[in-house]
C-alpha cells in the first residue's frame, strides 16, 4: 500500500528552500558586514 501522505514531501521542499535561502542570506549578510567595515577605514571597531 503506497503511503498517501504528502506532508513529508512538502516538509522536504520547505526545508530545502530554507537551507538554500538561509545560506544565500548568510553570504549576503557577511558580505555587507565586510563591505561596510572597509568603508570606515583601518582601525574601525
Amino acid at each position, binding site marked *: 500500500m*503506497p503511503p*498517501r501522505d504528502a506532508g*513529508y514531501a512538502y516538509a522536504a*521542499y520547505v526545508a530545502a528552500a530554507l*537551507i538554500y535561502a538561509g*545560506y544565500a542570506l548568510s553570504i549576503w549578510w557577511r558580505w555587507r*558586514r565586510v563591505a561596510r567595515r572597509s568603508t570606515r577605514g583601518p*582601525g574601525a571597531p
Partner: protein
Amino acid sequence: MGATSNVGVAGHGAGGAGGGAGAPARDESAPPGRDRAPTSAPRPFGALFWTAVAAVGVTYVRALAFTPVEALQGPAQKIFYLHAPAAFTALYLAFALMAISSVLYLWLRDPKLDRVAACSAEVGLAFTTVVLITGPLWAKPVWGTWWSGDARLTATLFLWLIILGYLVMRQAVEDRELRARYSAVLAILAGLLVPFIHLTVYLFRTLHPQPIVLKPSAPSMPAEMAVTFALAFVAFALLFVALLRARYRLALAAEAREEADGSGGPN
C-alpha cells in the same frame, strides 16, 4: 603576504549561517548608498544567481504540481527531485572541486585555488545538509523509519562531518599560507578517504542481515518524471555555481578588508 593579520577571522572563513561572534550587531541606520561605494569588490549576487533562483523555482512548481505521483512510493517520491540533485552536486561538484583545487594548490601555490577549495567546501556543506534532511524525510513514509543505516546516506553523513572538520580547521589557522597548505593536505586525504567510507558502509550492510528495502532506483521512468529530474539537476547545479561565485566574492572582499586593516587593527 598577509601573515600578520591579527584581526581574527570572525566574518571570514566558514561557519555557515551562524556566522562568527565578531563585531557587535549594528543597526541598519546607515544610509544604504554609503555601504558599498568604495569597495571595488563585485557584489556577490548577480544575474547568474537570479537565473538559478528562477530555475529552482520552475523545478519546484513543475515537481510539485505538474509531475505525476509515483504509484509505489506515493508523494514522497517527489523528494527525490531535491535529494538526488543535491547529493550529486555535493559529491561530484563541491567535493570533487575541493579535492582537485587542493591538489592543484600544492602544485601551483596559487591563493585562488585555496579560495576555490574553501568556498566549494562551504557551499558543499549546504548541499550535503539538504541531502541529510531530505533523506530521512523520504525514508520515514517509505521505509517506516527515519534512519535506516542506508549505505549512501550514512556515507553522506561522514562526508558532512569531514567538510565540517575542514571548515573548523580553516577557522583555527590564522596565517593564510599555512592555512592553505593544511587545508589542501586535509582535503586531499579526505578525497582518498571517501572510497574507503563507501566500501566500509557497503561491506557493513552486505555482511549484516538487513531488512529488505525498496531501492530508490528507477530504471524505466516515465518521460514526465525524467524531464523533471533533468530540470532539477540543471537547476541545482546552476544554484551551486551561483552560490560558489557569491561565496568567492565574499572571500575576496573579506581578504581585501583583512589586508586593509591588518597591521593597525586591535588585538
